[in-house]
């Protein structure tokens, strides 16, 4: 190698242990100079990582004395470009006992939530930074016990919103009981129920009632069954046949009870038969195949699709459409609503499914609950309008009041949603 005309001999010494490269330049005259090249990443690879600092254990807010939260400042060797730390291990001592592993965290993490603790014990923690060769512990935390809170104060806004809506529903039920006349808008799909049952009666064909594919723990299934109660009473009055294949055993028993009670109210308990409701399968597409088969073979004049539906919604609704049945559908799953709208004669959109039973009953106290729902809608509309205006005006004119309002609304509804 030449260096300004001088010949230079290079000796490269690789110190394998620390990966530092030393270059010894020796001139022709015999003078030598050593230059060490030690890139940051490689130079620190041999030493233990720095431990995490400021390790603090705190009570986890608003829980049942089961959790503690540990936070720390990551090791200085756990940063972009200095990735010596492979992760962290958390050690816990319970009631003054030995330290045991409590969990681990990935590089870059700065907190850990310890679970399944007891409020009767005190806990001390330390966090260890782990490298390929070493585990370096932080200092220990103060002893701490988890505390129990009785109210979830983070949910105060959710409580306020729920309280307002619930109060308005109860208030209007009470007003309706007191005899106040309430206006409820017409719902075309529910007005058509009478007509649909009448049509099946005239044609001498059965009515097919499908309550979705979810179990009794789904509110949509319950909504479907409350409508079934009203429909079954009319069916009993008209002496029409009903077929109800179900995909859940509990729905089968609940539906049988509902229909049986409706026949008793109609004064025709002898006309009821358990065969009106039958279990098919829990399997989604097996159920679809069976119901499609019933539609094609028995050609019901009217089909009710009321409950929770998924991918099977369009297959059922299109088959029903192909046999010329009047179809009244309703679900609270927005993704399935377009299919029902395209394939059915009437569709109960979202809230209409839950309002159906009250609407069909025509009882003032039930209709009162629908009126209370409208107050909730009014609140939602006001909040949306206020939010849009405050964000728009706040950003356009940088007016402090509107920014404050926008932040406040965001806080209220974010807390409520979380």
């Amino acid at each position, binding site marked *: 190698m030449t260096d300004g005309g001088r010949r230079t001999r290079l000796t490269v010494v690789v110190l394998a242990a620390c990966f530092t490269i030393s270059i010894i330049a020796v001139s022709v005259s015999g003078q030598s100079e050593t230059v060490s090249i030690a890139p940051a990443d490689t130079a620190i690879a041999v030493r233990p990582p720095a431990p995490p600092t400021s390790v603090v254990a705190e009570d986890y807010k608003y829980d049942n004395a089961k959790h503690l939260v540990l936070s720390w400042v990551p090791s200085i060797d756990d940063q972009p470009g200095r990735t010596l730390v492979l992760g962290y291990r958390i050690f816990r001592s319970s009631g003054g006992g030995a330290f045991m592993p409590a969990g681990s965290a990935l590089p870059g993490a700065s907190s850990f939530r310890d679970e399944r603790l007891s409020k009767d014990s005190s806990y001390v923690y330390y966090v260890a930074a782990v490298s390929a060769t070493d585990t370096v512990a932080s200092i220990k935390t103060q002893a701490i016990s988890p505390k129990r809170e009785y109210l979830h104060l983070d*949910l105060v806004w959710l409580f306020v919103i729920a309280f307002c809506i619930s109060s308005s529903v109860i208030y209007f039920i009470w007003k309706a009981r007191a005899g106040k006349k309430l206006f409820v808008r017409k719902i075309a799909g529910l007005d058509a129920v009478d007509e649909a049952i009448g049509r099946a009666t005239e044609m001498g064909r059965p009515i097919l009632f499908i309550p979705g594919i979810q179990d009794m723990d789904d*509110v949509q299934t319950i909504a479907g069954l409350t409508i079934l109660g009203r429909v079954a009473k009319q069916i009993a009055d008209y002496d029409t046949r009903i077929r109800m294949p179900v995909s*859940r055993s509990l729905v089968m028993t609940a539906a049988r009870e509902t229909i049986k009670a409706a026949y008793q109210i109609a004064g025709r308990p002898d006309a009821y038969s358990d065969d009106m409701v039958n279990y098919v399968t829990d399997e989604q597409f097996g159920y679809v195949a069976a119901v499609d088969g019933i539609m094609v073979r028995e050609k019901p004049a009217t089909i009710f699709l009321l409950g929770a539906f998924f991918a099977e919604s*369009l*297959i059922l609704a299109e088959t029903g459409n192909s046999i010329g049945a009047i179809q009244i559908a309703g679900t609270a799953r927005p993704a399935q609503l377009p299919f029902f709208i395209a394939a059915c004669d009437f569709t109960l959109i979202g809230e209409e499914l839950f309002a159906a039973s*009250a609407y069909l009953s025509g009882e003032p*106290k039930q209709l009162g609950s629908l009126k209370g729902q409208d107050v909730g809608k009014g609140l939602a509309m006001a909040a949306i309008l206020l939010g849009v205006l405050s964000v728009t005006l706040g950003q356009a004119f940088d007016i402090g009041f509107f920014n404050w309002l926008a932040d406040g609304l965001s806080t209220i509804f974010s807390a409520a949603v979380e």
Partner: protein
Amino acid sequence: MKRQVPLFITFFVGTLLIVSVFSPPIETLGEDFSVFFDIIAVFAFFLGGGNLLRVHLTKISRRKHDWAYSIVTLVGFVVMLWAGLFKVWNEGGIAASVTAEESLFGMIFNSVLIPLQSTMYSLLAFFIASASYRAFRAKNREATILLVAAFIILLGRTAFGTMLTAWMPSSLSAMEIPNLAIWIMNSPNLAGQRAILIGIGLGVVSMSLRIILGVERTYLGDDGK
């Protein structure tokens, strides 16, 4: 009494579950009740299976219309039950996993049930085509708006849609078909969906209160009058 006891249980449990949302000491109550429900649902399987057997055996014995299909149903039910209960062809015997691939249960599941499910699911593609044809007929103003919006979204999701408006200057990029499609999905469509979701939330609150307060009693076979 027959009505009052279920109404009291509904009121008590409903109120307790609402309180559990706001009170940490009983915050797991909802999950616990879900477990209770699952246990009850497991026992209800026997009711379902029993009903399936009864319905199809009656159909076969009385030679009702299409009774031969009931034989297929019953054979399928009994074979699957036998293969699953007795772990037929499972390598580890009765202690092995019921879903092991080499077992008879696994083979029937993978070779018969899954293809049948896929067949039913694939029907959806044809039904989407027929439903779209009906929905997109421009019979009135609303249907025309639906048709135009659907057309833009369909085009916007294809390379052809991108190509059609690629010549537009960057100042008009918002009018490019893919961007229009994104705008339709993110603005009017999302706003509509959220409106429906708010309505659903309110409907659930209203209906739950009706049931908890005993105003809605249809599920008990009582019309409340």
